[in-house]
């Protein structure tokens, strides 16, 4: 994602930094906080709300 494709910013729930999000961001998409590098899940759009992403579970995979 480049700066010119980011249309919205939302606060990281962990460190409070503003996280830039692309226009086509989807609910359940995972983004990485540019402030603290934690993985965040997009839990809502319009406006965007971020939450800490769930930890990988035992049965995740292909």
């Amino acid at each position: 994602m480049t700066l010119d494709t980011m249309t919205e910013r939302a606060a990281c729930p962990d460190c409070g930094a503003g996280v830039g999000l692309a226009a086509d961001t989807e609910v359940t998409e995972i983004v990485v906080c540019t402030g603290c590098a934690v993985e965040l899940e997009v839990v809502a759009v319009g406006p965007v709300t971020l939450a800490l992403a769930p930890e990988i579970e035992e049965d995740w995979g292909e």
Partner: protein
Amino acid sequence: MSDLTRTGAEAGTGDGRPVALIASRVRFEEKLLLEAFRRRGVAVVVIDDRTLSYRVGDPAPAWRMACNRSIAGTRRLEVSRMCEAFGIPVANSASTVAVCDNKIHSTLVLHAAGLPVPVTAVALAPAAGEEALRRVGLPAVIKPVNGSWGRGLCKINDIDAAEAVLALKESLPSPQQQLIYAQEFVRTPQRDIRVVVAGDCAVTAVHRTGEHWIGNVARGARTSRCPLTPELEDLALRAAKAVGGGLLGVDLLESDDGRLLVNEVNSGVEFRGAAVGDESTAFAIAEAFADYVLSEAPQGEASPGKVTQGKARTAGPAPSQEGDNP
């Protein structure tokens, strides 16, 4: 919570029903799939599998077809079971998911179909594990029956390692974790081959090369283009058919003694790795997957339904839905 039937009717194209893309996470792959459906003028509702619930016997949700992209093996199987119970075509089928997500089951099915697989032995408890290892010989690999991304693989070089790993398996709480699935350690040129299959089409093949004996992209393996030879294509399509067909990632091993083996078949295939250095490959996979999903979708009328879930969003030309995003 929203009424998904109403959601589907609003989103409709063609026969009025959208395709349901059911996912735990919208990853690179799901984004490409959404774009592929969008390019075809198809409405899609994105369903978070964590929000699904249904009452047995309820009418079906108004989905034309479901594309099951759940990242969690447990939910992946239940998503396909649910769709099939509602009479909604789903890729992949519950049968395919069940076979692929259990290494014992998939090896038995592949072997029964006459496909070459690594020498494999199963023990139903750690107490019989040494016998299983003796049957395959050392070095060997013990794998979790339901594992993925290369997690939990143990290379057994000698009897001391075997004792340690079997003792650890014995201490694990789940009976499933205590099953012993042991395979010969296949010496390869530090790489394996992933062939991506959509229905009866082998879409592409990539080499996955790593420093570690575990060649998963999730473990840092690099991908590079692999020529899709008739031999690879034939083997991959036969393996895909053996497990029930659908959208699949067939993993092959080239042993240093000249064998080409089917290592496993993945029902929740990821293809981000195929895009490294060559995004067109990943796009081609998404296009092929979308075409396969749509080829499976019926053209009949929608049925009313009452499945509810908390997050549904529409991609493509359909009108946006109000109140679907809490």
